């Protein structure tokens, strides 16, 4: 399958099946760690896990809604990262961008398998650990936002998750999604508008907060 290069001002994005390439991706902050992982360095494996597993789990949780499913996806994504480490070719894309693409692919596989279950059930709440400063109101707000995210069309949820929660740049997010930056911007706008509409009371209340 030949690479599809998307029209992105200043930076080309090439997307292949199961692959993501960004022209001039810039220095990869994970490269050193990845090379040590490839050598079987136990400390590097722990460090890369600490750095990437929370991001992968967050992405999967936002996409899938259910913690158990998200943990399965996160584990599988990390196994693929371990397999990829010895074969990693620097310069094609950042490792983090590749890992996001792999995680999203796994999420879509999971969504295809369990679509009817996801629609029928209220998603599990994420165990956020002890947080004495967060009251019931905050937890209810979180639950509503979580549900509103799950109510978005997949591609809009993906765009909002990558840019807002994962804080990927527009170039990286577009590369992960395999769309142009313009298309990403459109998905983001529609997604955020839909969220604003479904959470309008919370958004108005937020305006009154000190």
């Amino acid at each position, binding site marked *: 399958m030949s690479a599809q290069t998307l029209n992105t*001002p*200043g930076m080309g994005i090439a997307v292949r099946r199961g692959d993501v390439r960004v022209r001039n991706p810039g220095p990869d902050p994970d490269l050193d760690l990845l090379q040590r*992982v*490839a050598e*079987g360095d136990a400390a590097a*494996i*722990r460090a890369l*896990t*600490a750095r990437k*597993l*929370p991001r992968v*789990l*967050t992405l999967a*949780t*936002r996409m899938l809604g259910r*913690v158990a499913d*998200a*943990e399965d996806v*996160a*584990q599988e994504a*990390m*196994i693929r990262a*371990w*397999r990829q*480490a*010895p074969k990693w070719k620097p310069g094609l894309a950042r490792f983090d961008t590749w890992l996001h693409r792999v995680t999203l692919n796994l999420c879509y596989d999971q969504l295809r398998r369990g679509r009817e279950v996801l629609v029928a059930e209220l998603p599990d709440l*994420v*165990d*956020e*650990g002890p*947080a004495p400063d967060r009251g019931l109101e*905050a937890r209810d*707000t*979180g639950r509503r*936002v*979580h549900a509103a*995210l799950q109510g978005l069309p997949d591609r809009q949820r993906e765009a*909002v998750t990558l*840019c*807002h*929660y994962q*804080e990927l*740049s*527009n*170039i990286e997010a577009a590369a992960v999604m395999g769309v142009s*930056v313009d298309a990403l*911007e459109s998905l*983001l*706008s529609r997604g*955020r*508008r839909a*969220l*604003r509409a479904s*959470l309008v009371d*919370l*958004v*108005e209340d*937020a*305006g009154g*907060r000190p």
Partner: protein
Amino acid sequence: MTPDRFEVLSEAYGSRVELWPTDVRDAARAWVARNPDQAGEVLGRAARLDSVLDTVRPPVVSHALRERVIALAVPAQIRSGLRWLWGAGVGFGLAATCAAGLVLGVIMSGQLQIQTTDEPVTSVMTGYQVPTDSGEVFL
């Protein structure tokens, strides 16, 4: 940077200009400096949505999941290596088989004898009328 473009960007990327596309950040900051009231209103609207979205905290990685992932690192790499070796082995096997076939073909072709025989050319009915000695005509 126009007011419309500024608003479109805030609707897409939210209130934090540092997360906007790199190629528009400077222009956006300059626009904010020139139009503080208008920019404040637009960014404030986006910030209210951002703050609501941020009430969903990131999930906590359980100890069990973290240890499972770490424990799977080495086996995954070994399996990946074995898969490479298996692929290389299959490739080597195919190459060896092809080479053996080629050698065998060359040897056997040297032992073949070329046999040619002059076979009579059979006539083909063309519709042409051939008279015989007896004067009969066969069609």
